[in-house]
């Protein structure tokens, strides 16, 4: 009922945020989100000391409102100079033409060596062969599991492939009884199924902008996913129905949970000290052997509209420095994208981070189309229906393809037009 009020408040916040008076020195406007937005403020003074004449003004955005605000700012021509951008949003803002390509700058900056970055996460910033962001931190998801329950079920190690995973889940279910489960796959999160889908050899969206959920690979992933619920290995619930995921994990309500690095700190803090030995992290199992996971996280981007790109690039270089990344990790728990930083003792000796380090060698970007988030939302809605038994797996994949094709219709028109344009230009030249 209060849509208008919500929108006005957002607009007012934006107007206040973009007020500025003419500075004597170069003032960089930087937008950062969530916890990272708070922490980057602690790192800025050192940057300003090292770079006299550059002042940094950080504006914090909540993650939930960031996407809308960035789009509105783009339309209203009120972009900052630099921002932290979720790397699944990079293709969208690259399509908009909002981002400045960084290939030239990276080539001229030995302090940002491409070889020192995990390739999967680097690649998530490359759209149509051009680089649009420098990875800042990585959010990939993997397995958090109960070591003690798994041991009691007869397994001394976490699963390496789906078949073993399934055997372990069945054994755990037999052990814990009808009121408890083996795995928790919240129905209102698309990420677990998205990751299983990424593990398939076929892409979920084809190059000619069509849904590809009917592929054998995705079908296998969906069957695996739905199978856990059909056979009572996973509860058919959403996160809104679980009051405290850490308590439930501690009680053994479930033993496997697919989530990200931000939970390491939470698990350390919220599980009783005596139980800290009972949980561990493990890389994602794949259909046949170790599997890939999503190349999530945030990147640092420069905006085309900025007149202070050189100064902004200095800040990117500063924030990418290994010692700063180490400190950033200590402050936030975020995982660094640079291989050399992983060799520092804090990370190398952290038993919970080890699995993430291993997983980072195997991360894959989600399909690089601006519509992916909408398609992923449909993935959540359709799989939720299938989990509730309203659709069969066959109907679900057909429905997913239908919705994806509809969502991508405009993209296909643009691709076709571009191809035509390319052909006619080529003809004109010959």
């Amino acid at each position, binding site marked *: *009922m209060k849509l208008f009020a919500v929108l006005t408040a957002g607009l007012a916040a934006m107007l206040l945020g973009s007020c500025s008076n003419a500075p004597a020195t170069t003032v960089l406007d930087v937008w950062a989100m969530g916890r990272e937005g708070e922490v980057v403020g602690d790192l800025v003074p050192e940057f300003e000391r090292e770079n006299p004449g550059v002042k940094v003004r950080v504006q914090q955005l909540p993650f939930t409102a960031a996407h*809308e605000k960035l789009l509105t700012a783009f339309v209203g021509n009120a972009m900052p100079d630099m921002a932290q951008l979720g790397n699944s949003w990079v293709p969208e803002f690259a399509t908009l033409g909002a981002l400045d390509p960084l290939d030239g700058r990276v080539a001229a900056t030995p302090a940002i060596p491409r070889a020192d970055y995990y390739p999967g996460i680097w690649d998530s910033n490359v759209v149509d062969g051009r680089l649009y962001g420098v990875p800042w931190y990585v959010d990939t998801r993997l397995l958090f599991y109960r070591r003690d329950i798994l041991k009691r079920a007869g397994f001394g190690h976490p699963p390496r492939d789906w078949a073993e995973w399934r055997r372990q889940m069945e054994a755990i279910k037999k052990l814990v009884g009808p009121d408890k489960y083996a795995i928790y796959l919240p129905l209102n999160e698309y990420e677990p199924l998205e990751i299983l889908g990424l593990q398939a050899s076929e892409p979920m969206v084809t190059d000619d902008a069509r849904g590809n959920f009917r592929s054998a690979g995705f079908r296998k992933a969906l069957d695996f996913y739905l199978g856990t619920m059909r056979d009572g290995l996973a509860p058919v619930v959403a996160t809104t129905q679980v009051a405290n995921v850490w308590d439930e994990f501690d009680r053994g309500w479930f033993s496997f949970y697919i989530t990200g690095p931000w939970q390491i700190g939470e698990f350390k803090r919220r599980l009783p000290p005596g139980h800290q030995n009972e949980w561990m992290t493990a890389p994602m199992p794949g259909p046949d052997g170790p599997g890939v996971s999503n190349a999530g996280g945030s990147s640092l981007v420069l905006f085309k509209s900025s007149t202070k790109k050189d100064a902004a690039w200095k800040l990117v270089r500063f924030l990418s420095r290994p010692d700063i990344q180490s400190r950033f990790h200590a402050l936030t728990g975020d995982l660094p994208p640079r291989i050399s930083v992983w060799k520092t003792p804090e990370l190398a000796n952290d038993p919970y981070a080890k699995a993430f380090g291993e997983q980072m060698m195997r991360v894959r970007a989600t399909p690089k189309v*601006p*519509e992916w988030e909408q398609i992923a939302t449909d993935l959540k*809605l359709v799989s939720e229906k299938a989990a509730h038994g309203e659709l069969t797996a066959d109907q679900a994949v057909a429905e997913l393809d239908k919705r994806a094709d509809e969502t991508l219709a405009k993209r296909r028109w643009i691709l076709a037009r571009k191809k035509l344009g390319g052909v006619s230009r080529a003809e004109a030249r010959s």
Partner: protein
Amino acid sequence: MSQERAAWGFVAPALVALGLFFFLPVAAALVLSFTDFDIYAVADIGNLRFVGLDNYIHLLETPLFWKALGNTAWFVILGVPLSIMMSLAAALLLDNKLARFKGFFRTVYFAPVVTTLVAVAVIWRYLLHTKYGLVNWALGGIGIGPIDWLGDPHWSMPAIVLFAVWKNFGYNMIIILAGLQTIPEELHEAARIDGASAFQRLRHVTLPGLAPVLLVVSILTMAGYFQLFAEPYVMTQGGPVESTVSILYFMYEQGFRWWNLGFASAIAFVLFLIMFALTLVQLKVSERWTQ
């Protein structure tokens, strides 16, 4: 003549403001609804296509639109009578001569109206929790098994209704209370002397006296409830299984989440037409009532 000119001078600022900030955007939105304005058009206006009535046709073919319409109608049908009955009951209690601490209770009942929706939504999510919520605990006390309020697609809308009614009944209560106080005491007294029971007095004295007030209240409540948005936005994000997606929520998602502004504008105009038609019906009904 000069008087007329002066009058125009006085209304001009208001007309300019209305034209600039209301009629112009509405006209622009109407034009937008005949285009496929989206993220690609933001990037390059050359990607904009005039699609005629395609958005409207596509909208009518979108199952989620019908589902959202059904959800909204369900919310209105369930919520409006419940809300008005709650308001009426609370107003009658407060109007009763036996009632003590009237000022206190009036404040308590009105308090939810002025609280921040987002804050109370968080509290309601605790109240409605399946395992640890107070609502299920109370229901368990009278032998009703736990209800998965926000997780079960059948119960999510009733849960939203419960929340919305609790949040809003105080507002109508104040209006009805004012209406009750305009009914002359002599009428009640005369009815009592004629031997009318309490229920008969309510049925034949209070309610007819309140009729115009109830009509206004019902029109306002219906118009308000049709624009359901914030409650599902904070409580359920439209879930589970799209069971709490309202028309406005659907429009918001299309427009501001997926940036399909052409399509979202079409939804806005369809919503406008529906509201317009409903108001016409209500006016017709009210004409019959007042005659």
